[in-house]
C-alpha cells in the first residue's frame, strides 16, 4: 500500500460510507454529514492525485469482482492530475454544501457516490472498469441534475436531454473501445498499448471514442445537454459537473488518442483542433448573448473545454510531426487550462449559487446592485470573472499564454497545413479571449454593480458562513494558480509527458520558462508591478491633487429628473452590439408587434418587442435527426401488428437466414 492507493481506497470508503450515513441520519444533520463526508472524500482524492503526480504508481486487479472483465485500477501522472482536480472541487463543494444543500435524501446520498465515480474513472486501467465507472458517473450525475425536479418543470426537460446525450456518448465509447479490445490480447490498458492495429481500425476507434468523450466535455455538436443541465442542477453540483466531470471527457481523448493509440495520423488532431476551435468561439458567443447567469457559465464551460481541445489537437498535430518538446508544451498548456478552469469555474458557479440562494433570480436583466447586500459574493464573483477573462493577473491568462506560445512556436519546417492552421488557431484563441472579456464584464457589471433592477435583487442578503467559506476557498485556489502557476506546472508537465513523451515543458520557480523554445513569463511580477503602480499613482494623486473632501453628486440625467432602475443598461442591451455584429452566426429571432389605436393607424398604442437567441446548432442539427428516428420508429411499428403467426414467421426466416449465411461463410 502506498499513498496513492491508500488515498484512493480512503476516498472510495469515505464516499460510500457518507452515502449510507446520509440515508440514515435525520433531516437536520444530513447536510452537515454529507458535507463532512464530501470534504473527506475530496481530501483523500487530492492526496491520491498528488501522490500520483509525484510519481507514485500502483496497480491492482481483481478479476473476480466483475464478471467477464474484472476490475483493474492503477495510477500514473495523467490519472493523478484529474484525480487531484476532481478531489479539490469535491472538497470545496462539500464545504459549500453544508449550509447550501437542502435537498432530499436521495440527492444527498448520491452526491458522494458521484464524486467516487468521478475519482474512479481516471484510475481505471482496463476497458471494462472504465466503462462501468463512466456509466456510474453518468447515472449519479443524472440523479443529481434531477434533484430539484419538484420545484421546476424545466428540470425534467434538462434531465431528459442529459440522459439521452450522455448515453449516446456512452454507446459510442463502448463501441469504439470494444473494437479496440477485439484487436488486443486483453482489455487492460497495457495490452491495448501493445496491440498492433490496422490504420483504418485505429481511425474508427478514435472517431467513435472522440464523439463519446467530447459529448461529455460539452463540445459541439453534442453540447446541447450542457447549457440545460448546468443551470437546473443545484449550484454545487453544477460546480462539480462543470469543473470536474467535463474534464474527464478531455481525459478520455488524451488517454485513448495519445496514450493507448499512441498518437495517430494528422487528420485526427486536425479534427480535434477544429472541434475545439468551433466550440470555443460558439460557446463564448452564446455565453455573451445569454442573460441567465448559470446558462452563461455553462456555455463558458463549452468555450474553455474548446480551448483545451485546441491545445490537445495542437499537441497531437505536433507529436505526429515528430516535435515532442512542443507537443509536450501544447499538452501542458491544455492540462493547465483544465486545472485553471476547474478553479475559476468552481468559484463562479458557487458565487452564482449564492446569488440564487439570496435572490432566487438567475436572470441578469433582473439582478444588479448586489454589491451592497452581498459584498463577499461580489468580490468572489469579480475575482472569478477576472480569472475567466484571460487578463493578467487572472488565472486563465497563464494557461492561454502557454497555449499561444505553443501555437507560435509550433511552426514545422515547410509544413503547409500548419501554416494555415496555427494562425487561425491563434485568431480563435484571441477572439475567444476578447468575447470572454465582454461576457464577464457583462456578467459582473450588470449582475453585481449599479442599481438593483428588481425587488429580489434589492433585498439580497449575504449567504451563510459555510457557503462563503467554500467560495473564498475556491477563489483563493484560483489566486494561487494565477500568481504562482509554477507550483503546479512541473506536475502538469509530467502528466503531459505521460501522453506525448519528452521532458518537462517548463521550468522556473517565480518565472515560467519554456524548455526548448524562447519564452518566459512571470505572473508574480505583473501582480506585484500592478500593485506597486496603483500605490504609486495613489501617492502621486495625494501629493498633487487638492485635499478637499469627497462630495456626493447627482448622476448626469440630461436634466430629466432622477434616473430609475429601468433606465439602466441591461444584460440584453449590453450584448446587443455583439449580437448585431455576429448576426449571421447567431440568427437571433426578433419580433416586433405594433398595436394601433382603433381610431387611427397613425397613433400607436403599444409596441411589443421580443428577442431570443436560440442555440442555432441545436436548432439546425437536432430536429432532422429526431424526425428521422421518429420516422424509423413509425416504420418499425408496421412490422409489429400483434399477430403471433407473423412473429413466429420472423423467427423462422431469421433462423433460415442465419443458417444460410453460416453455410456460405464457413
Amino acid at each position: 500500500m502506498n499513498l496513492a492507493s491508500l488515498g484512493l481506497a480512503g476516498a472510495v470508503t469515505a464516499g460510500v460510507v457518507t452515502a449510507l450515513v446520509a440515508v440514515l441520519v435525520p433531516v437536520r444533520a444530513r447536510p452537515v454529514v454529507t458535507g463532512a463526508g464530501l470534504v473527506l472524500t475530496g481530501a483523500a482524492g487530492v492526496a491520491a492525485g498528488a501522490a500520483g503526480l509525484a510519481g507514485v504508481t500502483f496497480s491492482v486487479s481483481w478479476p473476480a469482482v466483475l464478471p467477464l472483465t474484472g476490475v483493474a485500477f492503477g495510477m500514473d501522472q495523467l490519472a493523478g492530475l484529474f484525480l487531484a482536480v476532481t478531489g479539490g472541487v469535491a472538497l470545496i463543494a462539500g464545504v459549500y454544501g453544508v449550509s447550501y444543500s437542502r435537498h432530499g435524501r436521495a440527492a444527498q446520498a448520491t452526491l458522494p457516490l458521484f464524486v467516487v465515480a468521478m475519482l474512479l474513472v481516471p484510475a481505471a486501467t482496463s476497458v471494462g472498469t472504465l466503462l462501468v465507472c463512466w456509466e456510474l458517473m453518468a447515472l449519479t450525475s443524472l440523479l443529481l441534475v434531477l434533484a430539484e425536479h419538484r420545484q421546476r418543470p424545466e428540470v425534467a426537460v434538462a434531465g431528459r436531454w442529459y440522459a439521452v446525450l450522455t448515453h449516446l456518448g456512452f454507446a459510442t465509447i463502448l463501441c469504439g473501445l470494444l473494437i479496440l479490445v477485439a484487436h488486443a490480447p486483453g482489455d487492460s490498458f497495457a495490452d491495448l498499448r501493445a496491440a498492433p492495429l490496422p490504420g483504418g481500425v485505429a481511425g474508427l476507434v478514435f472517431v467513435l471514442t472522440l464523439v463519446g468523450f467530447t459529448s461529455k466535455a460539452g463540445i459541439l455538436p453534442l453540447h446541447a445537454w450542457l447549457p440545460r443541465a448546468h443551470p437546473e442542477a443545484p449550484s454545487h453540483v453544477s460546480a462539480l459537473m462543470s469543473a470536474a466531470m467535463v474534464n474527464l471527457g478531455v481525459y478520455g481523448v488524451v488517454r485513448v488518442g495519445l496514450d493507448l493509440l499512441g498518437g495517430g495520423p494528422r487528420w485526427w488532431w486536425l479534427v480535434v483542433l477544429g472541434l475545439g476551435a468551433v466550440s470555443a468561439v460558439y460557446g463564448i458567443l452564446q455565453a455573451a448573448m445569454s442573460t441567465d447567469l448559470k446558462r452563461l457559465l455553462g456555455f463558458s464551460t463549452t468555450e474553455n473545454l474548446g480551448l483545451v481541445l485546441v491545445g490537445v489537437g495542437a499537441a497531437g498535430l505536433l507529436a505526429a510531426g515528430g516535435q515532442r518538446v512542443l507537443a509536450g508544451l501544447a499538452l501542458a498548456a491544455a492540462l493547465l487550462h483544465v486545472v485553471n478552469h476547474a478553479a475559476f469555474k468552481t468559484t463562479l458557479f458557487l458565487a452564482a449559487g449564492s446569488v440564487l440562494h439570496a435572490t432566487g433570480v438567475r436572470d441578469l436583466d433582473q439582478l444588479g446592485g448586489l454589491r451592497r447586500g452581498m459584498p463577499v459574493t461580489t468580490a468572489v464573483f469579480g475575482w472569478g470573472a477576472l480569472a475567466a477573462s484571460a487578463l493578467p493577473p487572472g488565472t486563465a491568462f497563464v494557461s492561454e499564454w502557454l497555449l499561444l506560445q505553443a501555437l507560435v512556436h509550433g511552426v514545422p519546417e515547410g509544413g503547409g497545413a500548419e501554416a494555415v492552421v496555427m494562425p487561425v488557431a491563434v485568431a480563435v484563441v484571441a477572439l475567444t479571449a476578447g468575447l470572454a472579456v465582454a461576457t464577464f464584464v457583462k456578467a459582473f457589471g450588470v449582475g453585481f454593480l449599479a442599481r438593483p433592477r428588481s425587488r429580489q435583487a434589492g433585498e439580497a442578503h449575504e449567504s451563510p458562513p459555510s457557503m462563503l467559506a467554500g467560495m473564498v476557498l475556491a477563489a483563493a485556489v484560483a489566486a494561487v494558480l494565477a500568481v504562482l502557476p509554477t507550483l503546479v506546472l512541473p506536475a502538469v508537465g509530467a502528466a503531459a509527458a505521460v501522453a506525448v513523451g519528452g521532458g518537462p515543458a517548463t521550468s522556473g520557480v517565480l518565472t515560467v520558462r519554456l524548455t526548448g523554445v524562447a519564452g518566459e513569463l512571470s505572473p508574480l511580477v505583473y501582480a506585484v508591478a500592478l500593485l506597486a503602480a496603483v500605490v504609486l499613482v495613489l501617492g502621486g494623486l495625494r501629493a498633487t491633487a487638492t485635499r478637499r473632501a469627497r462630495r456626493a453628486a447627482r448622476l448626469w440625467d440630461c436634466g430629466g429628473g432622477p434616473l430609475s432602475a429601468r433606465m439602466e443598461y441591461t444584460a440584453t442591451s449590453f450584448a446587443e452590439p455583439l449580437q448585431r455584429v455576429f448576426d449571421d452566426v447567431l440568427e437571433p429571432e426578433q419580433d416586433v408587434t405594433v398595436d394601433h389605436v382603433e381610431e387611427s393607424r397613425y397613433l400607436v398604442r403599444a409596441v411589443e418587442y421580443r428577442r431570443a437567441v436560440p442555440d442555432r446548432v441545436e436548432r439546425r442539427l437536432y430536429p432532422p435527426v429526431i424526425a428521422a428516428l421518429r420516422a424509423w420508429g413509425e416504420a418499425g411499428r408496421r412490422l409489429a401488428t400483434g399477430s403471433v403467426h407473423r412473429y413466429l414467421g420472423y423467427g423462422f426466416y431469421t433462423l433460415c437466414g442465419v443458417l444460410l449465411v453460416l453455410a456460405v461463410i464457413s
Partner: protein
Amino acid sequence: MNVAGGVVQAVVVVGGAPLLVGVMRQVRARLEGRAGPGIGQPWRDLRKLLGKEPITPRGTTELFRLAPLVSLATVLVVAVVAPFVTTVPTVGPAADLFAVVALLALGTVVLALAGLDTGTAFGGMGASREVTILALVEPTLLVAIFALSVRVGSTNLGAIMTATVEDPARVISPVSLLAAVALVVVTVAENGRLPVDNPSTHLELTMVHEAMVLEYAGPDLALVELASAMRLAVFLGLLGNLFLPWGLATGTDPVALAVGVLALVVKVGVLGALLAAAEVFLAKLRLFRVPELLAGSFLLSLLAATAAFFLA
C-alpha cells in the same frame, strides 16, 4: 534589473503623453485654420482638474473610484516594462507582447466596469460599445503579434526589436508591411480615434469612450485623461519601435538612453502628427460599420501571419 531605464521610460511617457495629445490637437487646429491652444494645454487642463474637489456620483461603489487608479496603473506598468527607450529589460522577463496587450486590455475593462457601475444609460452604452470593439480588435492584434514573432521565434518585445535592428531588410518585407497596417487600425480602434470614435465629440449618443467616463470629474477625470493619453503614447511608441526600432538603447549608459529618449520622442511625435493630419480628412464611421473595418484589418494580419510562413 535596469532601474534607470525603467524610470526614464516612465517619466518620458507620463510627461510626454499629454504633450503628444497637445501636439495632435495643435496639428488638427492648424490644418482647420484655427490658432489652437498650444501644445501645453492638456497639462494645464490636468492641473486644473487636480485642483478641483473629488466627486462621487450617488449610487456608485468603490469600483468606480478604483477604476481610474487601476487604469492608469496598467499603462504605467506597460510604460516601465516594455522597451520604449532601451531594450534592456527593466524588471525581469515582463516585456512579453501578449502580456502587454492583455495589461492594456485590463485598463479598458476596469473603466468599462466603472461605466456600468454608474447605472446610467450612457455609462452602460459606452461600456458596451467599448467592450465590443475590444473583443473584435483582439484577433487582429494577436495574429499580427503572431506574424511578427514567428520569424524571431519569441514573443518578447526586446527580441523582436533587436532582430529588426540586426536585419533592417525585414522592415520592408510583406509580413512587416501587412502587420504594420493591421496594427495601425488596431491603434486607432483601441485609442478611440477617428474613424472609430471621435475623442472630441459632445453628443452623448455618438460617444464610445467619452460616454463610458461621463460621470468622472475632478482628480478622477484627470487620472482617466492622463491614462488615455498615455495609452495613445504607448501604442504609438510600440508601433514605432516594432517597425522602426532604430535609436533604441541596447545598454544602460546615459548617452544611449538620451539618444533613445530623443528617438522615441521623434517617432511618437511624427506618428502622432500623421495620425492627427489624417483625422482631419476622416469622418466618424457608424458604430456598426466599425466591425467591417476591423474585419479588414484582421484579414491583413492573417495574410501577414501566413506570409511569415511561406515567405520566410
